[in-house]
């Protein structure tokens, strides 16, 4: 028991690490990937909806969007958890985090769409393109390219918000660490390692996001 006196015990660290890595791969990463996909698609739908709908609809959409953006993800998760009691928490959590981040990404898309030069719109009119073709063949491809780095940053930020899913009983990385700490009365290794896994993953993804940004800058210049 003498290792309980030391600040760091490698025995505890090695005992908890496999579980943490496994939870990271099977819960945190999966939630982030599927949640990002939901956010990216739904965000685009919201952004297009706000641009193309008649005024009252667009206004209502903006109100709902701002309401979701300005209220806590945790309360939204709890709300959904007690309303949709039959849906598995992990599925529900992924959808809610996806919807929450869709409202952020919608703003990114909006900025991207606004940044497409007016000449491009005029050109589609000159070529008498249909509205659908204007959006899919001209506007969205250009808008997307400009928005990719900002979207990538929101994915990283969503990744760091996945521990909030523990409020609806999802055992993700931080909860796994807390459980180990609770049963063994040793929190330091488990929680530090959970933090290090987050740190490593977010530093790595920041580097990748920056590289993506550089690459897009270079090809558009």
């Amino acid at each position, binding site marked *: 028991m003498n290792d309980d006196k030391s*600040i760091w015990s490698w025995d505890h660290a090695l005992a908890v690490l496999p579980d943490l890595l496994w939870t990271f791969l099977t819960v945190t990463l999966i939630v982030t990937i599927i949640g990002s996909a939901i956010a990216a698609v739904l965000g685009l739908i919201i952004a297009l909806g706000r641009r193309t709908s008649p005024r009252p609809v667009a206004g209502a959409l903006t109100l709902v969007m701002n309401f979701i953006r300005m*209220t*806590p993800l*945790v*309360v939204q998760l*709890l*709300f959904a958890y007690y309303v949709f009691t039959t849906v598995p928490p992990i599925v529900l959590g992924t959808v809610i985090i996806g919807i929450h981040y869709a409202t952020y990404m919608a703003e990114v898309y909006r900025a991207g769409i606004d940044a497409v030069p007016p000449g491009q719109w005029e050109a589609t009119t000159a070529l008498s393109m249909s509205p659908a073709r204007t959006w899919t063949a001209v506007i969205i491809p250009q808008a997307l390219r400009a928005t990719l780095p900002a979207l990538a940053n929101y994915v990283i930020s969503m990744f760091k*918000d996945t521990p909030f899913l523990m409020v609806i009983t999802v055992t993700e990385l*931080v909860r796994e660490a807390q459980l180990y700490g609770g049963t063994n009365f040793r929190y330091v290794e488990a929680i530090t390692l959970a933090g290090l896994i987050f*740190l490593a993953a977010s530093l790595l993804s920041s580097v990748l996001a920056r590289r993506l940004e550089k690459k897009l800058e270079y090809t558009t210049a």
Partner: protein
Amino acid sequence: MTENLDALWRALPQIWDGVFITLVLTAGGALLAIVVAIALGLLARFENILLRGFARTIIELFRGTSLLVQLFFFFFVLPLPPFNLELPALFTGILALGLNYGAYGAEVVRGSINAVPAGQWEATTALSMSRSQRMRRVIFPQAWALMIPSLNNLLIQLLKGTAVVYLITIVDLTAELNRLRVQTDVFFAYTLGLLVYFAIAYLLTLGMNALESRAKHRLGQGVKWRDAIAGTPPVPDMKGAGQAA
């Protein structure tokens, strides 16, 4: 619906206490965050590799690990044997929120200072101002006006972040909602809670907008901040109007 309202009426004092705790966490966290943000943001601009390295390490550490990891570290790890440091839960919450959002704020501060036009920096050199004079009297007031919109976003994030502190036994608004849920129905309790959070966020945004127009007004840009709050349109300057025509 009437049962819900009755239950709400009975629970109102507790709800109000919860709102108060949420406001304390938001205010305390924001205060700590702005101090951390300015300190680290300034340090991160130093030429000295040690100072800059220190600031960057702290910034990346608190940005890169999740808020909940930091909250749990302070709450679960510090009281146990090697550290034996037991902090009050409310203080722990403010500490984690302040350091986490302060690290994000440091990047905002650094970016805004770098965004002040080069001519302003050159002018301070021409006037042979000292480093601290330059920062206090010329650069920071201009950077401050630039950074307020981003700081507002972070403030709203911080407010939303306070909702997790009930996991470390703090009885904030979310904790009170979890109790209210039992007496009323789920839909009623959480809809009410979301509306309260939204109202707080909205008021904070109004306050930050007023702060921004004040900062701009002091730089000789924009309208007086009292006019901005009151929503009265600025009186246009009519001097010389019509002369150009």
